[in-house]
């Protein structure tokens, strides 16, 4: 190796060191700047039930075969109606749990008698597919105590939720993982 080559290598190394130093500084600055505005919490996806229009896309657009979105019941808001418009088809033949009377395509809502004339409605999450038929019915004629929520035992927390992309009313939001639900009848972020 002659002397000319040595200076050549040194010059390239010098430039490389400079570039590396610049990259490190830049990256450090970026990370510092972002850390200032970051949160220790991770973010998860959640539906604001007051923005949800119950379009039914949650059942079809989740990356999971059976959606991570499930119907959720705010029992304190429920009217415990005998004729529940979230449970029964419009103009049901009879107020019984017969499949032909039910709105829910998978029979995921359980109707139990409490006392006259009140019935309690509970959701079987393992059956619910998040189609929002009951949500629509309850919102239209009832108290709106049935609503959709992303259930975090199932959600894989995609970086960009594919239901959020399809949501017609932008009801999906990134929320801190320490407050992962937006429940009706409570302070939404609480």
């Amino acid at each position, binding site marked *: 190796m002659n002397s000319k080559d040595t200076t050549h290598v040194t010059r390239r190394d010098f430039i*490389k060191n400079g*570039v*590396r130093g610049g*990259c*490190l500084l830049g*990256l450090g600055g*970026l*990370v510092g700047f*972002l*850390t200032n*505005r*970051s*949160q*220790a*919490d*991770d*973010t*998860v996806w959640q539906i604001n039930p*007051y923005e949800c*229009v119950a*379009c039914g*896309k949650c059942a079809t657009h989740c990356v*999971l075969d059976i959606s991570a979105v499930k119907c*959720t019941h*705010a*029992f*304190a808001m429920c*009217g*415990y*109606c005998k004729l529940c418009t979230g449970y029964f088809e419009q103009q049901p033949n009879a107020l019984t749990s017969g499949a032909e009377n039910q709105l829910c395509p998978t029979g995921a809502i359980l109707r139990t008698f*409490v*006392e006259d004339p*009140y019935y*309690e409605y509970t*959701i079987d*999450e393992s059956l619910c597919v998040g189609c929002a038929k009951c949500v629509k019915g309850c919102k239209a*004629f*009832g*108290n*709106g105590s049935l609503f959709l929520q992303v*259930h*975090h*035992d199932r*959600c*894989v*927390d*995609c*970086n*960009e939720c*594919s239901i959020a*992309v399809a949501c*017609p*009313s*932008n009801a999906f939001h990134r929320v801190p*993982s320490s407050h*992962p*639900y937006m*429940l*009706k*009848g409570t302070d939404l972020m609480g």
Partner: protein
Amino acid sequence: MVALVLVLLILPTMGYTVQRFPPPDFDSGHTLPRTVIPEPRALIYEYLDVMVLLIALSLASYLALKSRSRRGIFLLGIFSLAYFGFWRKGCVCYIGSLQNITLALFDHSYTVPLVIIAFFSLPLIFTLFFGRTFCAAVCPLGAIQDVVVLRPIRVPSWLEHALGLFAYIYLGLAVLFAATGSAFIICQYDPFVSFFRRSGSLDMLILGGGFLLVGLFVGRPYCRYLCPYGALLNLVSRASKWHVTITPKECIQCRLCEESCAFGAIQEPTPEAKTTEQDENKRRFTYLLLLLPVFMLFGGWLGTRVSDPLSRMHPTVRLAEQIWSEDTGDTQDSTDASDAFRSTGRSKYELYDEALQIKNQFAWGSGLLGAFVGLVICLKLIFLAISRRRSDYEVNRGTCISCARCFAYCPVEHERLKERGKDTIPVPGRI
């Protein structure tokens, strides 16, 4: 009257819902059940992921640079594929995290989680010191393509250079769409995530399958020609402090490694250039340098031409156009989105304003994107015009992903292993 005041007081707190039927007071003393809300994955596990990433990065760098073990790299790759891919279901990935970082820079209402900052920056920092060892064994998308490399063909140099530009264009588009809050296209078109989740739309399964099929014969097609994070790492890796070398000591010019790289990252020694050729290259270099602003201006102009279709990636722009065409009678059918918008009672002029603002951002953004693409293409040409002298077979520090395949082809490496008393000399199979 009192009731009306009460209702008015309660209504705002209840949002849009009306308590049509007051909740009953049960005589039987029935207690209300609790609403089922399963907790998300505990935060501690997210930090565990960062630890695993840190350990995997260190291990990959050690295996590639120090112990020079292809077997180790391969096994670590399998682990990463299993952990970050199939166990963690591929989200959030390092590649996608660059969109979160961009969004956080441009949208002040978005607070980016610390974990995502770590996922974005750690591989970059490691690459600055050790080269792309991250790509070799830590990235699950890389690993899934690495295991299917069967009989890689040599992609012609001109095609390799041309296809490599797509990664930068993809990077530019991803940044534009993330910065405007339109979409995370890297996530939407991640070809392998549906395999990791073992569920997904048919289109994405076909796309992923296609990539793997091509990957049998063209090593790591996604990494080389599309990965936007790989484009960043490529640039950063050129300035890396240390980097894998084909031979552990001095090259003996045996040419055995010539065809060993599955990813076309080994550069041949350059023959002694003739003076006329050097002059020609110098002239090309000068012309291209002078043409650089022209490339960027033309690119910028082209960019502003396509800003309108690009802006339709933003849901607000789409919604505003839908509302507009409904109101002018161009379309009769309303969409879910337009129905939802009308039910909120928001003024449509507010929406139009918002959409115009976004379109304005896109006019600027796509102009910049075009200029960036012009810059990248021109720089590529400039680098091709620079004749760099190489006396040995060397790896291209930008495109080499430190997979350690070529080591086994080097007789000097075999000597080194013998000296160390390792009698099992790795015999290369079909790459």
